[in-house]
């Protein structure tokens, strides 16, 4: 029961933030709405026992990426842009997307919970009692054993991104 209430609350936060993100005129307002939306998603993570991802979502997305966005928005002067036309001519494409998504939702709503049938063995019942995969130690174990190579590659990707953005943004190295 409590889960359902919280789900509605966070879902509302997420969707409200998302709608405002794509409709607000001012880029700063858009960014703040996106932050609201991200907080909603973080809450949904928490609802699904993904505490580590909840923390990472807040530290990395809100504290890192969104801060970077705000920083850049404040560096570039967008006063002129706010007075101009906000939406491009590709409205038919957007319409197609909306229709597609609407069809998908209609499908889910008609089929209800039966829309997804997993094979009986898919869920591993042994670990179900603990916080289902949410606890940090299990995630760390998987990350540093099974997923070690992707992890190292991700670190390399980040290094490349850091060097690349410094080179792009700096006039003289």
């Amino acid at each position, binding site marked *: 029961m409590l889960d359902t209430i919280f789900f509605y609350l966070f*879902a509302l936060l997420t969707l409200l933030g998302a709608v405002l993100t*794509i409709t607000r005129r001012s880029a700063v307002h858009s960014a703040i709405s*996106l932050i609201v939306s991200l907080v909603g998603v973080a809450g949904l993570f928490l609802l699904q026992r993904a505490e580590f991802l909840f923390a990472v979502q807040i530290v990395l997305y809100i504290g890192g990426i969104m801060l970077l966005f705000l920083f850049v928005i404040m560096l570039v002067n967008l006063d002129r842009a706010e007075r101009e036309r906000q939406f491009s001519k590709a409205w038919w494409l*957007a319409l197609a*997307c909306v229709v597609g998504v609407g069809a*998908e939702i209609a499908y889910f709503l008609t089929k209800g919970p039966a829309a997804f049938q997993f094979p009986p063995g898919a869920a591993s019942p042994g670990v*179900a009692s603990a916080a289902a995969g*949410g606890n940090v130690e299990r*995630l760390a174990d998987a990350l540093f054993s099974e997923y070690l190579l992707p992890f190292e590659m*991700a670190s390399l990707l980040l290094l490349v991104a850091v060097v690349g953005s410094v080179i792009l943004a700096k006039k003289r190295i």
Partner: protein
Amino acid sequence: MTTAVPLSWYLILSAILFGLGVAGFVFRRNIITVFMSIELMLNAVNLSFVAFSYQLRQTDGHIYTFFVMVVAAAEAAVGLAIILTVFKNRATLEIDEVSDLKN
């Protein structure tokens, strides 16, 4: 352990979020807002990853989400650097005006 909130709800939410992201991506003219729409889409995907992971009681979905976040961070760093460079050279952030590569 059956979840109080069924999986399909999360997936519907994720689909709506993704749709909003796509709409913003094709609709808006400001590069920064377009970028934010991409973040919305990534979050929609993350949400369904975690939802499936919770349903199947496995950590794999969490790890995918973690990697998506890492990639998003890298993408934001490079993308925003590009935006800054574009703004420095053009003094505008309108997508339609930055179209030199169009014939």
